[in-house]
């Protein structure tokens, strides 16, 4: 492996620094996060080279204001946390607030998936407004996949990897644990 790597290196004269720049370009130009496999395929890299280049990229980013994040669906560039306060004060309109109704709907889908529209209505005791579903679809946080085998074959809703990305989770396992019934009984 190492031999092949080195030959390739000489052929292409691509330094790790060049590769790290190519990765930076692709991450900036991509609409969605890019996985390690995407990067390796697009740039014809070995795992080893990719890792070296990513490490160098991180170093370079540290000089500026961005940071490299590894999310459920891959790598993305974001503005380092330490600068969030500045952004929030200058561009308050960028701060997305979610209503309680939307959060509850999202929670039912996230924790109990797959669910139908009427499952959500049953749990929340409220008719589901189409605005809420539309917002969740629009953000790409939920999707329809399959049908429940009951009357009307209602569509089944799931969360997506974009949902995980937005909430900084790598996997559904990382969702905060559902509070247990006993503590709910006690506290109510």
């Amino acid at each position, binding site marked *: 492996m190492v031999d092949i790597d080195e030959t390739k290196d000489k052929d292409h004269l691509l330094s790790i620094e060049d590769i790290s720049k190519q990765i930076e370009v692709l991450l900036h130009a991509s609409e969605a996060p890019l996985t390690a496999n995407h990067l390796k395929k697009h740039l014809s890299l070995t795992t080893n080279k990719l890792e070296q280049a990513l490490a160098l990229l991180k170093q370079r980013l540290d000089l500026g204001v961005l940071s490299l994040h590894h999310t459920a669906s891959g790598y993305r*560039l974001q503005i380092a946390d330490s600068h969030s306060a500045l952004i929030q004060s200058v561009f308050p309109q960028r701060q997305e607030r979610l209503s309680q109704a939307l959060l509850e709907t999202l929670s039912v889908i996230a924790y109990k998936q797959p669910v139908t529209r009427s499952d959500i209505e049953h749990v929340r005791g409220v008719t589901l407004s189409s605005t809420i579903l539309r917002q969740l679809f629009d953000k790409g946080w939920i999707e329809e996949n399959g049908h429940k085998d009951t009357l009307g074959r209602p569509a089944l809703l799931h969360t997506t990897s974009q949902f995980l990305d937005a909430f900084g989770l790598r996997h559904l396992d990382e969702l905060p644990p559902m509070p247990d019934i006993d503590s709910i009984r006690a506290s109510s």
Partner: protein
Amino acid sequence: MESNAEIHDMSLRIYQTPVQHLPEDLYVPPQAFAIWLEQFAGPLDFLLYLVKKNNVDLTQMPILPITEQYLAYIHKLDTNHFELAGDYLLMASTLIAIKTELLLPKPETPTDERDPKAELIERLEEYAQVKAASQRLDNLIRLERDVFLAMVSMPSQDIMNAELPNYSPTLLIDSLFKMQLQPDYQMHSIKVDAVPLADRIASISRQLSTDGARSFYELLDKAQGKIGVVVSFVAVLELIKRQLIGVVANNTDSSVHTENKTDSNLPTRSDIFGKLTLEWLA
């Protein structure tokens, strides 16, 4: 204030336990009730609030006083705001049913029916759990609230634009039709169709609303081939179903609906079909 006292008295009378402290914040003038209700995510949230205010364990929920309190507030609801409160009224009827059940003498023989009170408590617990989970979800560090994506522009337009095609202005209009016509939550399905139904629906709507009437044949996009014909037909059916377009009644062969011919006659059939004229109704 009067109604507040009522509730207070009621709690005192029914609870055998020491005096419940009166939730001052519970009193609201009737006209403000609709606005006040909006602070709750629904009737379960409201019920949960009442349980909490009465300072009781959910499993020991005294159904009668809670029901009385709930109904007392629903009564306050201005009739002008009934449409806001459909879900609350539905819950009220459930509570009344439970209350009635509890007041009636229990049948000697045990029945298979679920205990409605137990069922309600179960729902409340489940809701409370989801509500707490949603708060935990909201506490996570979230993109575009707590952290932000870095946005950069692509390289200079003239360099990237070298092969950029011109866009047709009908794209804009079609997008507006799509925005209005698509069922909310099928709009974003990820499945890739060779000829997306939504695009055909939007395009056909645009053509008919602009031109009034057109034959089915004229509505087709020749570049889309056979599948385009099929999808266009489904699009036309969908628009007819929504009563946005109609078939122009004319004197062409009425056997379209009744004929039962063999495959050899297909050309004729599709010919008739192509001449089918559709008109905009909306």
